[in-house]
């Protein structure tokens, strides 16, 4: 059955067509592979490498914070974060839905968090739970095949002392916002200090994150580590804070039963021993509680009262007026002024707090008794600009320059200032209320602390600071103390008289008797900061605003060669002298510690403890204020904290 010739010819011809076709197609395929594998090789190799190689950040532990005696204040602990890696999910909505139910977190918030990072590369984990609970970790771990896009990482996290101790001093850390990414050059998602010491010393504390290059498979599982650059822990930082004194101060507030602020330092060096602002918050739970802390507009726990609260200094300002009067020569320590319970200035009768008057008093006794008429008279003789000049020299104007963020400036008015801000000239009558620390005088607790420390330091003003030493890897290096902010030479008599008067406040018949410590010669001055004028008080009655006055107690000890000086600010505690026991407790603790004695303990208030008997408070603002003064008094929002 041989094939006929024409058939064979036809078959051959068509086989040639097929043959040619096949050869052409194979040649084309070879060319395609040539293009892909030889010409475009580099591009595809890069793509293949980026498929399986991942660089993961290893978070560096932040530097440990110590107190001045080497006690650990802030350290690190291990915590777990849970993140989503979008690259490993096919359906992000499903992931978010399941993650929110597995982790018991709000879906809308989760969605928002994921959206916030949507422009980042999809292999970069988006942290959805910081410091996850063990339940959450277990829940994710149990579903690792169902939800391979969820990842658990162990990361070092800040551990702050319990009870929110010195919370405002430490500040807190968080994910860098866009401004920080731009300004301090950290990668997005880096953990940086947001406030307090954490923020100011962030560059030292944050260390350097490490990284590891790993091989991952197509579902993102880590197969092996290619190389690893370990993180470098942040530098250790030693604060000037004394843990025991800090605790004594905060215990003192709690014992006394009011909120407030304290800044206590070594007047010789400016080293801050206590920095307290109450109410505080727990920085360990900052993320979870942030919203409720922020919305608490009544107590405003996020406000650092030491630096951000500005208040009338009240009678503590009399120290400034006394110093100014002696330096300007309008009075000597022995200048006597007769107080008959009031005096007339610019046609208006202004009362002293003591109805019958103090009689004839000299400078020391005027301070001791806080005689208003005496300081009205000095203020009137000085004029506001000279008061301002010496307030500035004592450190009560502007910012103290402490190494902490968000400090508000303190304000002592002068004629130039008033012209600039209101366009009106200064009326001499306004000086009368400035002379007793009312009117527009508005200062932070920190600046009052600097003022009293300057007095304690014989006029040498130091800049307060909270960092004592840093360890940049070669052992502790003590920070150079800042140069004295002001070293104006005062007349020797000025401070002698001031110190004697302030000693009498505490140790004689003055208002600071509750701060007395046997053998320590505590010296100080109480003061009351009006929250609102007496008329305003009547008007605002019935609102839920707390209108009770604030109390001040500035102090130093011992009288000769003081080692400790500072301020206790009691928020709405009515009387300055109620802050004195807190100072007393801190001073006792200071000396007990110095001499190696057991630290004093506060006696719990027994249920039978009699309520504090009402004491005539000489610092209370004069009952009937002339309208001129009332006008000059701004309806004070004392905590003008931005």
């Amino acid at each position, binding site marked *: 059955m*041989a094939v006929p010739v*024409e*058939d064979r010819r036809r078959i051959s011809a068509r086989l040639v067509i097929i043959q040619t076709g096949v*050869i052409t197609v194979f040649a084309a395929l070879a060319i395609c592979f*040539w293009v892909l*594998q030889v010409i475009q090789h580099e591009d*595809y*190799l890069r793509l293949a490498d980026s*498929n399986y190689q991942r660089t993961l950040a290893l978070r560096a532990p932040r530097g440990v914070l110590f107190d001045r005696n080497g006690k650990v204040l802030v350290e690190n602990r291990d915590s777990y974060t849970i993140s989503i890696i979008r690259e490993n999910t096919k359906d992000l909505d499903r992931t978010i839905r399941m993650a929110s139910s597995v982790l018991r977190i709000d879906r809308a918030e989760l969605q928002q968090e994921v959206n916030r990072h949507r422009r980042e590369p999809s292999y970069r984990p988006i942290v959805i739970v910081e410091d996850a609970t063990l339940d959450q970790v277990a829940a994710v771990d149990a579903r690792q095949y169902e939800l391979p896009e969820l990842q658990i990482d162990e990361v070092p996290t800040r551990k702050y002392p319990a009870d929110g101790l010195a919370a405002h001093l430490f500040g807190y850390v968080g994910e860098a916002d866009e401004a920080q990414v731009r300004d301090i050059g950290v990668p997005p998602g880096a953990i940086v200090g947001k406030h307090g010491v954490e923020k100011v010393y962030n560059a030292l504390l944050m260390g350097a994150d490490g990284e590891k290059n790993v091989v991952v498979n197509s579902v993102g599982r880590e*197969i092996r580590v290619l190389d690893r650059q370990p993180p470098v822990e942040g530098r250790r930082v030693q604060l000037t804070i004394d843990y025991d004194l800090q605790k004594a101060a905060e215990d003192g507030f709690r014992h006394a039963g009011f909120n407030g602020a304290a800044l206590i330092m070594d007047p010789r060096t400016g080293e801050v021993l206590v920095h307290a602002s109450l109410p505080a918050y727990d920085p360990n739970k900052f993320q979870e509680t942030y919203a409720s802390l922020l919305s608490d507009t009544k107590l405003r726990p996020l406000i650092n009262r030491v630096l951000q609260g500005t208040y009338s200094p009240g009678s503590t300002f009399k120290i400034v007026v006394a110093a100014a009067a002696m330096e300007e020569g309008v009075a000597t320590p022995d200048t006597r002024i007769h107080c008959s319970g009031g005096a007339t200035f610019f046609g208006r009768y202004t009362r002293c707090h003591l109805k019958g008057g103090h009689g004839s008093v000299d400078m020391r006794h005027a301070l001791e008794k806080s005689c208003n008429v005496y300081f009205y008279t000095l203020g009137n003789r000085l004029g506001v600009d000279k008061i301002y000049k010496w307030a500035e020299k004592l450190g009560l104007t502007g910012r103290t320059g402490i190494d902490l963020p968000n400090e508000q400036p303190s304000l002592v008015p002068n004629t130039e200032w008033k012209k600039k801000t209101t366009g009106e000239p200064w009326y001499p009558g306004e000086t009368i209320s400035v002379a007793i620390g009312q009117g527009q005088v508005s200062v932070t607790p920190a600046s009052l602390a600097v003022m009293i420390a300057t007095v304690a330091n014989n006029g040498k003003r130091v800049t307060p600071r909270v960092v004592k030493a840093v360890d940049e890897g070669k052992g502790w290096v003590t920070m150079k103390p800042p140069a004295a902010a002001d070293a104006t030479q005062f007349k020797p008599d000025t401070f002698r008289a001031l110190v004697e008067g302030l000693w009498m406040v505490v140790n004689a018949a003055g208002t600071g008797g509750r701060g007395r410590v046997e053998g320590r010669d505590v010296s100080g001055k109480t003061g009351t900061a009006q929250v609102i004028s007496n008329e305003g008080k009547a008007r605002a009655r019935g609102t839920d605003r707390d209108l009770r006055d604030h109390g001040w107690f500035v102090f130093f000890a011992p009288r000769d060669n003081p080692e400790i000086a500072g301020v206790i600010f009691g928020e709405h505690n009515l009387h300055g002298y109620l802050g004195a026991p807190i100072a007393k407790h801190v001073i006792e603790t200071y000396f007990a510690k110095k001499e190696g004695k057991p630290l004093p303990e506060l006696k719990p208030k027994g249920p039978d403890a009699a309520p504090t008997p009402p004491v005539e408070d000489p610092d209370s603002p004069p009952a009937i204020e002339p309208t001129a003064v009332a006008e000059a008094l701004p309806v004070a929002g004392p905590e003008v904290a931005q």
Partner: protein
Amino acid sequence: MFERRLYHHVDWAMLGAILMICVIGLAQIYSTTYVDGVGASSIFYTQIYGILLGVVALVVALSFDYRTLADKSHYLYLGIIALLIYVLLFGVVRGGSRRWIDLGPLNLQPSEFAKATLALVLAKFFGESRRGTVTRADLVIAGAIAAVPLFIIYLQPDLGTAVTLLPVLFAVAFVAGMPMRIVGIVAVVAVLAAPIAWNFALQDYQKERISTFLNPSEDARGAGYQQIQARITVGSGGWDGKNFRGGTQGQLRFLPVAHNDFIFSAFAEEQGFIGVIVALGLYLFVILRSIESARLSKDRTGAYLVLGVLASFTFQVIYNITMSAGLAPVKGLTLPLMSYGGSSMIATLAGFGLILNVRMRRFTN
């Protein structure tokens, strides 16, 4: 029936090339499915059995005179139709389609055997035609013969395998002398049929695959993923590849089914352009040797049979390799002789048994 002198007419060169391709495929399967700390996977061993059984099938297909087989091909054809219907009713479902008969340790996929059977039936049909040309009636009958298994396979559903039957019909009819006018019409109809098939014959997932082919980045995580990864896999291989077991795309599974549909991509990644040229050369050699066998065939039936068997093989090789380079829509079409799959290996080697058969018996009566 296997006379000694026939032994000398076996195309040893082509057989050698076929077995070399099988070994290359086997090595690539070993590389891609190797599990660290465990060793070669069971897939590797299954493939060895597949090749051994395939060689047996090849020898069997070689043993009987192809003319006898062609004469009896209508029984084979009916048998295959019966098996296909059986599969449709009682087959094992895997991945959403019913393609397999469960034979205990081995699953048989009858549709693979439909190709060679169809080649036999069509070779017989056109070979017996004494008219010297192909009439329209012939084409209609041949079309009907091909349509029955094609439709059943399509119902499984397994569009990929079903489509490979069309080249069988077309190649046999073409060589048998189908007028060039009709060849042209077929080509035009094929072009016109594409949109109709798009609307009626394709499943949504199939449409998705094709539309992603046209614009892969539109769906880089879904259907376009495989195509992009295939291109990355091939391109990253470069001149000489990333070495045996050194491919990252295949080893870390960025490329799916790297031992099966995308085995050529994984091979291109590890062996580079040089390996690709060697493999393409082997395939081309096998195809050209087969065409040579058709030319040498003693009778028309032999020539048609060779072309029928070769057509589905060539179609699948070209389509799969194009797809492996990310240059064609992703379809479940394996690469004959290299991809993992017992039925495919056995059926393909049996088909080459038939081709060798035609050449071997070119002098016998």
